[in-house]
Every structure is written in C-alpha cells, then in structure tokens.
C-alpha cells in the first residue's frame, strides 16, 4: 500500500512535469544498454528494480493481467535507429515505451509511441501500438532486473530481459546494409579464376611494424576464384588471407556504388564482415573481365588481379 502511495505521488509529479528535488540514491537505479548490428542501433533505457529478498515476484507483486513495464519509475524505453522486426512483428524505427501484458499463460509485449509514461500508466490498446507474443523461460534467480544482448549475429540479435526467475528473449532482425544479389549478366563477365597480387606495405614509418609483426601477415599472391551461386558472386581465396583463423578463405562480392564491389568474408557459411574500407572493380573488355583492382577508399592500390587463362 505504501508502495502504491509513493507511486501515485511520483506519477503526479511526473505527469505534471513539476521539478522535484530528489536525492541521487534510488531504489531502482537508472540503466541503459545498447547494441549496434549492421548499422542499426538498438537501445534500452530503464530503471532497474531489485528483488531485495522478495521471490516469486510474478503473480504476486506483479499481478496477472497487469500491463507492466519491465523496469521501474518511468516506463522502459526501446529505440531502434532503423525499421526492424521483433519476434517477427514489424517495428518502425523510433522510440517506444515498453510494456508486457503478464499472465499465467503466454505474455504479450506492447510497444507504445508515448515514451513519457510512468510505470503505473500502462497504455490501453490504441492505434500505432505494436503488439506481439513473447515466450518466457525459467532461469536461475536474478536479483536485479536486467536487459542485455546475450546473442549477436550478422542479421540481428537477441535482446533479453530477466528479473527473478523469468527470462524473456526477443529476437530482433535488422535490415541488411548491403546488397548480395548480382544479375547473371553482371556476373558472367566476372566469373573465373584470377591471380591476385597484394601490394607491399606502405612507406617506412606508416605502419608500426613491431605491432604488425606479432600478427600473421597475409600472403602477397593468392588465387581468387569467383563463381555465381544462387544469385551471388562467391569467391575462394587460396591460400586464405589468414590461415590460422577461419573466415578468410570464402568471400562474397557485394555490389556497392556504380561498378564497384565490396568484399565480405564468409565464416562457416555466414557473412560476418564487410570490408567497407576498400572496393574492387573489374577491367572488362569484350564482355569478359581481364582482371580487377582492389583499391582503398583513398584510392591506394591494395591488390591487382589478372585472369588465369
């Protein structure tokens, strides 16, 4: 009851936007977490309640049927810098207050455009909301309510919330910042085997050679074999750029600006990194590429390749 009274007073202050002098120490301290995936930033701002000896919070302190913000004080906020999907539901870029409709059965997440709500002001159903089902799991007890990203991939991430023994994972998929597909016409001239020669290191003093010496150096000459597979330009570098670590043998050519391609490296079948600091352009004459140049954004020649007859 005392907690409810405090909440009402706090809510009144919050809604009226009346400046309230307050101490720095809070029962539920402010927290934030963010993650960028392929250029899309995902961020959560929230206050972090602690169990403080209480257990079995859900169904007792947080009642079944309640529209609850997974946090405390002001509603927890989720922001996306680009359109994304969460558990398969389309979510437009922007900032939302975050709510969970808790029940004995399946839970529902509600994302509401009003980000100035207090935790006692769970929104009703209204236009512009995004609603989707979430699964909850049981995990070992966690004292402080926590949002984090337990899993990061190249196309998305898992954002999770846990308090007490309730763990709620959200699968977020982000839009790709690159294009993978290459038309058969464009691919035809590029497909083939090339002898690729990497240029030597820059002028003395440009690179800390003592530092670089501690890391495996890439080979200077490799064979680069390009094929068109399922609408993509894939390539194999032999020997790989780095032999002691996976992910430097298989490549994908990603069309960028004009007639240029970026190299993306494939590790265990997944595109894990795009080398955006350089790009590749074929020398095409008579419909077949005779070779290509790989140049930095600063137009430094990184590598030159000639088609193997």
């Amino acid at each position, binding site marked *: 009851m005392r907690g409810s009274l405090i909440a009402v007073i706090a809510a009144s202050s919050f809604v009226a936007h009346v400046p309230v002098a307050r101490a720095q120490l809070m029962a539920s301290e402010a927290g934030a977490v963010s993650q960028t995936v392929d250029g899309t930033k995902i961020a959560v701002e929230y206050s972090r309640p602690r169990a403080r000896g209480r257990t079995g919070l859900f169904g007792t302190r947080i009642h079944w049927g309640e529209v609850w913000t997974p946090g405390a004080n002001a509603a927890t906020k989720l922001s996306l810098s680009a359109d994304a999907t969460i558990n398969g539901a389309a979510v437009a870029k922007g900032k939302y207050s975050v709510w969970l409709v808790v029940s004995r059965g399946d839970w529902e997440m509600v994302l509401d455009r009003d980000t100035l709500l207090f935790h006692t002001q769970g929104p009703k159903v209204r236009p512009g909301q995004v609603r989707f089902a979430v699964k909850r799991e049981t995990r070992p007890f966690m004292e402080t309510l926590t949002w984090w990203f337990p899993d990061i991939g190249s196309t998305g991430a898992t954002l999770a919330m846990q308090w007490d023994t309730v763990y709620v994972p959200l699968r977020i998929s982000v839009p790709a910042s690159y294009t993978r597909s290459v038309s058969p016409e464009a691919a035809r001239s590029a497909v083939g085997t090339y002898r690729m020669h990497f240029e030597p290191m820059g002028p003395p003093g440009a690179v800390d050679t003592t530092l670089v010496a*501690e890391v495996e*150096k890439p080979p200077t000459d490799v064979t680069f074999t390009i094929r068109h597979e399922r609408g993509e330009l894939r390539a194999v570098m032999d020997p790989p750029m780095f032999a002691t670590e996976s992910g430097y043998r298989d490549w994908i050519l990603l069309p960028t600006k004009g007639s240029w391609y970026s190299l993306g490296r494939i590790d265990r079948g997944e595109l894990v990194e795009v080398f955006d600091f350089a790009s590749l352009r074929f020398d095409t004459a008579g419909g077949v590429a005779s070779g290509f140049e790989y140049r930095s954004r600063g137009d430094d020649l990184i590598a030159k390749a000639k088609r193997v007859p």
Partner: protein
Amino acid sequence: MSVALMSRREVIAALLALGLDPLRIVRGCEAHVPQSGPHPVPRPGIDASKVVPAERLRDSPRALTAFNEVRQIPAIVDGIRCHCGCASAEGFYSLLSCFEGDGMARMCDICRGQGRLAFRLNRSGKTLAEIRAAIDDRYG
C-alpha cells in the same frame, strides 16, 4: 593500440598501408552527410597556391601523395564536387577546397581518394567529364 585491441580488420588496413590510424581510415569523413549535386564549374585562373604545402603535412605522410597530386591539377579538381559531404560546408567550392586551408583531406580518405583518382585518370588522358563520371561511379 595493443595487438589485443587491434582486430584483424584493422591489421589488414594497416598492412595494406592505408595510413597511420586505421580507425581514421575506416571512418572517413563521418561528420558530413553525403549529398548529391552538380559538379562545380572550374573557376577561371584557379591555381594551387592555397593547397596546403608539403612542409605542413609532415604528420600525414600518406596524405602527402594526394596533396602533391592535387597540387598538379587544380583546374581539374576545382571542377569536381566532393562526395564526402563537405560540399555543403561553408566556404567550400569544390574538391580543391578540401585540400586548402586546414586541409581537411588529411583526415578524410574519401577526399584523398577522389583527388588521387582524378590525378590518375588525368594522367591517363581522361577528360574532366570522364573523371567526374568515374568519381560519381565510385564515390557518388
């Protein structure tokens, strides 16, 4: 930067001699938002007298080459719109402006790349129109 903090991506960039600071290479001119627009008309009588002199580029050995090349073709570079986003900045007229004054091209691999590409193509006999088209193809 220790080895542990240096990713292979950065090592690659460093190995490939792209400059002193891999982060600078990768980020480029992120303070500016690229905007398309027409290429400027080279100003009559334009010269390279305002291009940052070599003695002021001792701390940027990799940039020196680009500045030296641009210094040789001011009338060409003055007819190119910079695609890094600085074209909309106050006082900027053309790509040549990036190599003048404070020499922001020292910090921007896109500016340097356009300057070097312009020089390379000019040396191979390409016209200003062809150079503009190549720069638009790569950086536009």
